[in-house]
């Protein structure tokens, strides 16, 4: 299965993905879909490097595929990581109840 490389950004913990230019982005749709072993190995090296240079923590590969032309993360956990909680929270949660 194809992979995407993910991590959390050191300074703020934000979820980030490795893009085709080797830059960490918060936009999952810009993530580089890694379809060959060679591409995965290269990304792994980039991940190790970013961890070593203290830009990100916990870099790891996740399962992904191309769906309707976009990167789609196959694990539910990773989709929640990408999109945020599935529930409304904070004042948004209250507004909904009032409505």
């Amino acid at each position, binding site marked *: 299965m194809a992979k995407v490389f993910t991590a*959390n950004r*050191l*300074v*703020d*913990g*934000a*979820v980030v993905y490795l893009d085709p230019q080797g830059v960490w982005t918060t936009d999952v749709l810009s993530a580089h879909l890694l379809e060959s072993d060679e591409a995965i190995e290269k990304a792994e090296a980039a991940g190790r490097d970013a*961890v070593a*240079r*203290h830009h990100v*923590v*916990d870099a790891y590969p996740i399962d992904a595929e191309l769906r309707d032309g976009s990167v789609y993360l196959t*694990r*539910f*956990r990773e989709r*929640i*990581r990408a999109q*945020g*909680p*599935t*529930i409304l*929270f*904070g*004042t948004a*949660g*209250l507004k*909904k*109840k*009032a409505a």
Partner: protein
Amino acid sequence: MYQYDQYDHAFVANRVEQYRGQVSRRLAGDLSEDQFKPLRLMNGLYLQLHAYMLRVAVPYGTLSSGQMRKLAEISRKYDRGYGHFTTRQNIQFNWIKLEQSPDILAELASVEMHAIQTSGNTIRNTTSDPFAGAVAGEIDDPRVWCEIIRQWSTLHPEFSFLPRKFKIAVTGSEDDRAAIKVHDIGLALRRNEAGEIGFEVLVGGGLGRTPMIGKTIREFVSQRDLLSYLEAILRTYNLIGRRDNKYKARIKIMVHELGIDEVRRQVDAEWEHLRNGALVLPDEEVARIRAFFAAPAFETIETPVRSYEVARFEDQAFARWTRTNVAAHRQPGYGIAVISLKPIGGVPGDATAEQMEKVAELAERYSLGEIRVTHTQNLVLPHVRLSDMHSLWQALEEAGLGTANIGLISDIIACPGLDYCALANTRSIPVAQRIQHRVDNIDRQHDLRDLSVKISGCINACGHHHIGNIGILGVDRRGEEYYQITIGGRADENARLGDVIGPAVSYDNVSTAVERLLDAYVQERKDDETFIDTYDRVGLKPFKEAVYVTD
């Protein structure tokens, strides 16, 4: 309330500066994540799914209105305008930036709060009865003892690297609102035949992957001996507790493997050396701490309070709220008001910055500035004049905090689950919301009487599912969210683990399964019986049949 002395202030301030240095070294790349992680965890900072999470201790669940305002301010300034109150009398902020975390700790220190020992293999925040010092019939104020334990256990050099986390809870009442039987050590204040105050000591309780109910190791430990006895338990555990396997490292495993009699023998042997040493608690020291928790200046009020009774007679919704959310106070003319953080369809335990500020304001106006946090993820105003109760409730209603459901089915405990937690198998919060929507009719909820539903998103059991009348545990079935249901658990002085009813059900079927359990209860119950009483009488069978009907 306890107030920091010079030593406490200096210590916490020092700790913040130390941490600030560690964070800047980490950001500069002088510390690796492996080196830094234990340091941030010692200050309550976790890395979760979406960001860092900061866990702040609310010592024995007591907050001043000023502290609550500070929590609101922090949530607004450094997070997304809300916080999550947990089952261990902590508050968690979910969207924290590492670079700002030292500033947050400095802000907390300014109101005598911190996040020390809210994580890691140490003695954690000692928890207590949220009604402490207010409830009728208490043997002693447990917070006095929690504070003594806090001072003894904070940065205790011998116990900073235990085999595993260690949790202590204290109750001062016969009714256990602190779940002491599922803590590593549970302390219940007792009076002996001579009328002296001491403690029944339980050990080896806990939830997680191997749930156990604590066992009594000693019926009565006197006040003077409390710390030496606790130290003897901790030392015994520290020496023989298993470090080879983190799943077996809790004291409950030691008690289970050796048996309580052998553990008692070993603890006693250790205690012999400690008993008359430096840990003897001098009466003056107890008195000094006790003074911090002296009862506030209550007014002498004639009872019954007519205006309260009239309001209850005239306003049905208010009357209903008082039935579930108001408890008897030790002082005539006062009541204990519980503020539900469980509105239908909300996130159990969450409060927005505005709500925290509203609670702070109401505490100042109606509760002598005091607030409590409960292990069921609600808040408490402990000292409310009955004559103010109606106005308080109206103000709560306006702020979305007036839900009349304490102890009822919609007062659900739920851990953050997969919506936030890096360890989760499944979501918990939306399951709670779906169940709430099923029973959103408040009259129906009252008709279902006391009924606890507790949900955890994985085996770690942060949502206490084992001790829910209905317990729900999220499990992963080939990437799908499934939920194992237990019934018959209870969290009170008769604490007991629930029984699994059958195969796990899918996310879409959980609330239906719960609905069927409710139907079975209503069908089987006699007179005023609660769900748990009915279960005790009729057993698992009718409930199981109701859930697994083939239709």
